[in-house]
């Protein structure tokens, strides 16, 4: 049975969700930035933008997250785990690229042990994705085997209607189904014509890229230096990427007590691989850039059978010097066989 959610019933949905214990997060514009944040009304949502500047990853893999509180006593050290609160959250208006990032990272955060911080948040969250009807020059989901209406990582998919009145509702998972059943009275039954999804031209051949990367001779290619000359080694691309997941553990406190935290880290930083001895195996920006591409399209693929990239294009969109993954992959993709 297909159902329709009308725009002007969205506030009723919000009220229903909030009263059943969900905090609802949607793309919103606050303090000169678009990002996912709690909203209390549909008017606060910014659903007309291509995508929020910050990703949904921020709410699962926090930019800085307390892990353990410790107290150093005379004979022992007391520790107290600081897990995320058991708070149900509903993410409304997620882009397919952002949702896929969550699914891609699930594999990493669950492969050798289950990261409690990530999964507790995942298990308490419902992802309601809206398919894309527009894209910009930086989008490249179709190049990484995703699409403007990819369902990867989503619990519910909303397809914008052609007449602009609302969305066609498609439930994808059990979690999605129970959410939609909960607002069944607000939805309309029936079908309506959905708007065409955005046209996102394929920009590079990711399989060709992956096989070039997997070739040991490519590691020493002069290509790495050439494409990364202007990279300034900031963390923008990594921090805004829906799939990047590197972190640093820091203890913050004083002599007797403190909190151990997990903070975002970036392979673009010069200090990322700095050893205590002072040796740095990746001491040039080109080696760091090579690592970034290798990790996303070679190592991660080898391990988990999926590109560590959702094709959102934020890396290029936000890069201060117009770097980003797309161009490097295009250069590799266009290499003569």
């Amino acid at each position, binding site marked *: 049975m297909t159902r329709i959610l009308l725009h002007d019933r969205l506030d009723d949905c919000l009220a229903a969700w909030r009263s059943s214990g969900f905090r609802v997060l949607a793309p919103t514009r606050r303090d000169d930035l678009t990002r996912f944040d709690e909203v209390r009304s549909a008017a606060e949502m910014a659903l007309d933008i291509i995508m929020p500047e910050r990703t949904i990853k921020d709410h699962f893999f*926090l930019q800085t*997250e307390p892990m353990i509180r410790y107290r150093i006593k005379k004979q022992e050290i007391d520790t107290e785990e*600081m897990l995320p609160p058991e708070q149900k959250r509903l993410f409304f208006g997620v882009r397919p690229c952002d949702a896929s990032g969550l699914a891609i990272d699930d594999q990493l955060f669950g492969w050798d042990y289950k990261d409690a911080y990530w999964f507790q948040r995942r298990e308490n969250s419902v992802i309601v994705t809206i398919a894309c009807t527009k894209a910009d020059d930086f989008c490249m989901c179709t190049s990484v085997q995703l699409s403007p209406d990819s369902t990867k990582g989503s619990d519910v998919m909303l397809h914008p209607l052609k007449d602009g009145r609302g969305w066609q509702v498609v439930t994808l998972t059990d979690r999605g189904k129970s959410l939609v059943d909960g607002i069944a009275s607000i939805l309309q039954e029936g079908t309506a014509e959905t708007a065409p999804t955005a046209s996102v031209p394929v920009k590079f051949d990711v399989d060709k890229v992956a096989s070039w990367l997997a070739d040991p001779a490519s590691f020493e290619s002069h290509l790495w230096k050439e494409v990364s000359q202007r990279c300034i080694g900031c963390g923008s691309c990594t921090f805004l990427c829906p799939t990047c997941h590197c972190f640093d553990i820091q203890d913050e406190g004083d002599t007797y007590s403190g909190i151990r935290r997990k903070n975002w880290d970036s392979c673009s930083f010069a200090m990322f691989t700095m050893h205590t001895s002072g040796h740095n195996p990746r001491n040039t920006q080109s080696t760091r850039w090579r690592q970034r591409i290798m990790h996303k399209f070679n190592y991660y693929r080898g391990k988990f059978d999926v590109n560590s990239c959702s094709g959102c294009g934020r890396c290029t969109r936000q890069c201060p010097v117009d770097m980003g993954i797309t161009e490097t992959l295009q250069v590799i993709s266009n290499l003569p066989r």
Partner: protein
Amino acid sequence: MSEPFEPKIVAFVCTYCTYAGADLAGTSRIKYAPNVRIVRLPCTGRISPMFILKALQKGADGVLVSGCHPGDCHFAQGNYHARRRWTVFRSLLSFTGIPEERIKFSWVSAAEGAKFAELINDVTEQIRDLGPFEQYQELQKVIETQSSY
């Protein structure tokens, strides 16, 4: 009956003037408020704005920075450099909304024991009136909670 608020004040002072002045206050048995924790540096020129930020981060309600009078610096020029640094740093704190009244600067010489005591008493009362530095300390508390709901 609730206890009056006792401000925590950190004083960064130079060895050859203000610290000696504080010492003189002590040997002269002049009483002054116990709220101040004194940190001795060789010279005010050594005092980095980092120290002030660190003191605030660790819960100070007020910070005092004090050294030799211009022209009397034991190291000849340290306090001149410090003065420039403080001018710039104060305007920065003020611009970002951190109240300038909580960070105080003074010149106290080795002979000015009474002045030191009076200074501490005045500063303590002024910070007491301003109350605890809750704005900043709240940022500290937020660190411990789970952000992002």
